[in-house]
């Protein structure tokens, strides 16, 4: 029996990535290695034959996808109804969850400096983020992690395929950013060591010397102001 044809039929019937285990379930008598080799063979054959689709390794599995080269035609067929992109706020929150998972909403909000209930809800609704358990911190807050759908959405095979933060950082000089941030902080909060100009004010129960609640200085806005895009 021709394994390639069977694999083709199975992949054709699926709308989500199929793991090697799922495929092996349909072919109990065929060794895993043989299936894996046949899949790679299919992948190369499609590419060599310049098919309209590709076989890609995504979200821990295999999936048939239309070839990106042909997107302009597919797009016309779809009459411009593209798959929706995430908003910038949602994407930022998602990036934090992806790199710091599992993470609580509080930790996420500390990092972004803004309330994240809304975006978190959106991300959960779109099945990009899910609850992974509870933290042992006080109140046992929920922990969040990314889903397989997340990998699929960004075309990743696994979380280890996320770009390394160090590489991302290499795109900009961190010392340069630091200088600009310090200047912007000095302008907003007064010079270093003298926080009397803090916008936190002097009402009872508010920030004491040399301590700035980050919520007073929304991270995104501050960075935008200091550095721009």
């Amino acid at each position, binding site marked *: 029996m021709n394994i390639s044809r069977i694999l083709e039929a199975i992949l054709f019937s699926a709308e989500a990535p199929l793991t090697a285990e799922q495929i092996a379930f349909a072919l109990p008598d065929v060794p895993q290695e043989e299936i894996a080799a046949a899949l790679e063979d299919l992948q190369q054959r499609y590419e060599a034959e310049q098919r309209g689709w590709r076989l890609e390794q995504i979200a821990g599995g295999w999936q*048939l996808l239309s070839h*990106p080269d042909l997107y302009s035609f597919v797009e016309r067929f779809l009459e411009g109804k593209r798959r929706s992109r995430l908003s910038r706020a949602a994407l930022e929150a998602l990036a934090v969850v*992806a790199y710091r998972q599992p993470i609580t909403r509080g930790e996420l909000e500390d990092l972004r400096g803004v309330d994240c209930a809304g975006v978190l809800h959106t991300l959960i609704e779109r099945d990009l983020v899910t609850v992974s358990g509870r933290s042992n911190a006080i109140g046992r807050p929920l922990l969040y992690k990314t889903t397989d759908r997340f990998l699929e959405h960004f075309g990743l095979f696994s979380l280890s395929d996320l770009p390394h933060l160090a590489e991302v950082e290499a795109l900009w000089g961190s010392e340069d950013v630091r200088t600009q*941030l310090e200047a912007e902080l000095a302008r907003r909060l007064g010079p270093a060591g003298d926080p009397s100009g803090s916008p936190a004010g002097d009402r009872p129960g508010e920030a004491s010397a040399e301590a700035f609640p980050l919520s007073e200085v929304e991270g995104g806005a501050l960075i935008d102001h200091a550095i721009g895009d």
Partner: protein
Amino acid sequence: MNELKPYGGIDTSQFRGHPVDLEVFSGPLDLLLHLIQQDQIEIWEISISRITRQYLEHLQRLEALNVEIAGEFLVMAATLMRIKSQMLLPRPAAPEEDGDGMPLTREGLIQRLLEYRRYRDAAQVLRDMEDERRRSLPRGWAPLLEKSHLYPLREARAVDLATYLREVLERPAPIDTHEVQLEEIRLEEKIEQLLAAIASRGDPIPFREMIARPWWRLEWIVTFLALLELMRQGKAIALQEESFGDLWVLAAPPSEQGLEGHDLDGERMTEPMSMEGMP
């Protein structure tokens, strides 16, 4: 009511809440709330207990309880209390601590902002990946698109209509709305509206678009009755894509109209409707 002090740029005439009389403010309660929220009056100069006492005295003078006014007052008093208690509580974030239990210093703040900046740039990389990935579509994507312009619809039967209505009625209402006033809605008016809507548009109209206030069950029911009446008269056709699916309403072609030729009057709506199993 005492003369209102002029407050910068605010049209005080739009505020008609229950009047309160305090040292720093005399006027309607909703204006006071507005000024506090605008930071024109400091919340700690306001005695909520005094506002409440004045209000309770006012209520005792009234012969009948006006639920609407009482409700408004409760909302405003609760908002004032929330603002005030928030101001009295120490800010939980100050002094904030970093992972080592040290207060968050300027250096700590910079560290955190730099970390945030890393994630923001990572988000941009993810955006590029997302855009690239969106150029490849998996199988089964296209059928998920809206097909509103295609409407391969079949004619709905009475039982479909009844099932649809039941499904609509069982839909939970939004929690944050409440209907206190009893409003009236006339079947004759609804019939006219429906007729005008389908006559002005050649295409089928989604039934739900005919409902101006979706949270109001009575309007669903009356609109539904109006649709049934128009169908009985042969002036409208209802289409449905699938059982339990959305209803679409379309004007009947002229040849089908006027079979019964009744004039519209409410009395004709006495025809018994099969509503078995309706809530």
